C-alpha cells in the first residue's frame, strides 16, 4: 500500500514538474506575440557570436578572425591555415576559434554570404556552411547564387530552417552582422582577414594578409607551451 502511494506521489510530482517547465515556454512565445523564426530562435548578437565559434570557450588560446566570404585572401587563409587549425587545435580543445563577419563594401555578395552563414550558425550548422562558402567562393561570387552551395551541404530539414531564417529574419541576421562590423571598426580594422590571438590575457594582432599554417602552428605551439 505504502509503495503504491509512493509511486503515485512520485508520478504526480513528476507531472507537476513537467507542467511547470512547459508553461513558461508557452507564455514566452505567446506573450511576445511574434511567430517569426527569429523570435522562436532568439537571434541576438551574443548568441550569434557564440554560434559562430568553434571549440571550447575555456581553451588556452583564442583566435578571432574578422573575415569576408568574398575576399580571396580570406578563402586562402581559411582553406590553408584555419582548416588545419580547426582539425588539429580546435578539435583538441587547445584553441577557441571565433568568426566575425566583416563584409567589405567592395564585394557585391559578401554581405549576403554572411547572412547565410549567420542563419546556418543559428541552426547549429555554422562550420559546415562556413567551409562550403569558402570552398565554393569562386563559383558563387560570379553571380551571387549562394543558396545551392548552402543546400548542398545541409540536410533538407536543416536547409528548410536556414532558408526560413534567411528569408524571414533578415533584419535580425543583418543586425548580428552589423554588430561584428562595429566590433571590427572599433578595432580599426579596414581589411580582411584580420586575426587576433589571445593567450594568458594578452591579445596580439597578427600581420595582415593571412598567415601560413606552418608559422601559425609554430606560434600556437609556443603559446601552448608557455
Amino acid at each position, binding site marked *: 500500500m505504502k509503495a503504491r502511494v509512493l509511486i503515485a506521489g512520485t508520478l504526480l510530482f513528476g507531472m507537476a514538474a513537467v507542467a511547470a517547465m512547459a508553461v513558461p515556454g508557452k507564455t514566452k512565445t505567446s506573450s511576445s506575440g511574434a511567430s517569426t523564426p527569429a523570435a522562436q530562435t532568439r537571434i541576438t548578437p551574443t548568441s550569434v557570436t557564440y554560434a559562430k565559434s568553434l571549440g571550447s570557450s575555456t581553451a588556452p588560446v583564442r583566435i578571432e578572425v574578422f573575415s569576408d566570404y568574398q575576399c580571396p*585572401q580570406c578563402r586562402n587563409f581559411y582553406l590553408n591555415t584555419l582548416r588545419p587549425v580547426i582539425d588539429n587545435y580546435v578539435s583538441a580543445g587547445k584553441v577557441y576559434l571565433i568568426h566575425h563577419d566583416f563584409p567589405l563594401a567592395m564585394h557585391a555578395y559578401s554581405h549576403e554570404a554572411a547572412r547565410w552563414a549567420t542563419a546556418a550558425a543559428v541552426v547549429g550548422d555554422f562550420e559546415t556552411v562556413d567551409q562550403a562558402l569558402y570552398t565554393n567562393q569562386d563559383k558563387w561570387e560570379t553571380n551571387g547564387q549562394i543558396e545551392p552551395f548552402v543546400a548542398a551541404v545541409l540536410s533538407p530539414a536543416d536547409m528548410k530552417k536556414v532558408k526560413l531564417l534567411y528569408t524571414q529574419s533578415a533584419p535580425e541576421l543583418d543586425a548580428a552582422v552589423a554588430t561584428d562590423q562595429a566590433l571590427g571598426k572599433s578595432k580599426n580594422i579596414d*581589411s580582411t582577414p584580420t586575426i587576433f590571438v589571445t593567450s594568458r590575457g*594578452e591579445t*596580439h*594582432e*597578427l*600581420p*595582415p*594578409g*593571412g*598567415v*601560413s599554417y*606552418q*608559422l601559425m602552428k*609554430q*606560434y600556437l605551439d*609556443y603559446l601552448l607551451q608557455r
Partner: protein
Amino acid sequence: MMATSTAMHTVEATAQPMGFLARAFLLLGRLLLGGIFLVAGYAKLHFDGEWHLRDYYFFFSMAIDSYHMLPLWAVELAARFLPWFELLLGVMLILGLWARWAAAATSALLVVFFSAIVRAYLLHLDIACGCFGNNERLTGWTVLRDGSFLALSLAVAWFAFATHRRSARKS
C-alpha cells in the same frame, strides 16, 4: 706656370667648402639613417606596449612570409636576425664605427627591401610592410618612403667612401 699655380689655388679654395659640406652631409645622413635603422629594429622587438624578446620572430616571420619570396627556413632565419642586425647597423652609423662598411651594408639591405616592396606593390599584395613594426600596411607611401631611404643610404655610402679616399690621398 703662374697660371697653373693660380688654377690649383682656386681648386683648393673651392675644395675646402665642398669638403665641409660633404662631411656635414655625411654626418647628418649617418645620424638620420642610423636613427631610422634603430627605430626599425626596435619596433620589431617592442610592440603592443611591451618587449617581445622571446616571441618577436613569430610576428616578423609572418610579415616576411606574406611577401611569398623566401622558403620557410630563410623566413625564420631572417626574422630572428634582421631586427638585431638593423640595431647593430643603426649603432654603427650613429657612432661612425666602420661607417663606410656600415653604409654599404645598409645600402645593400635597403636594395633588397626596396625590391621586395616594389614587387609586392606591383603584385597588389595586401600585406604588412614589416618595416617599422609588424602591422604596418604596405602602400604607395611605403614605396616612396623606402625609396627615399635607399637614395639617402646610397648617397651616404658614396660620400663615406669618397671622404675616406680623399683623406687617404692627403695622408
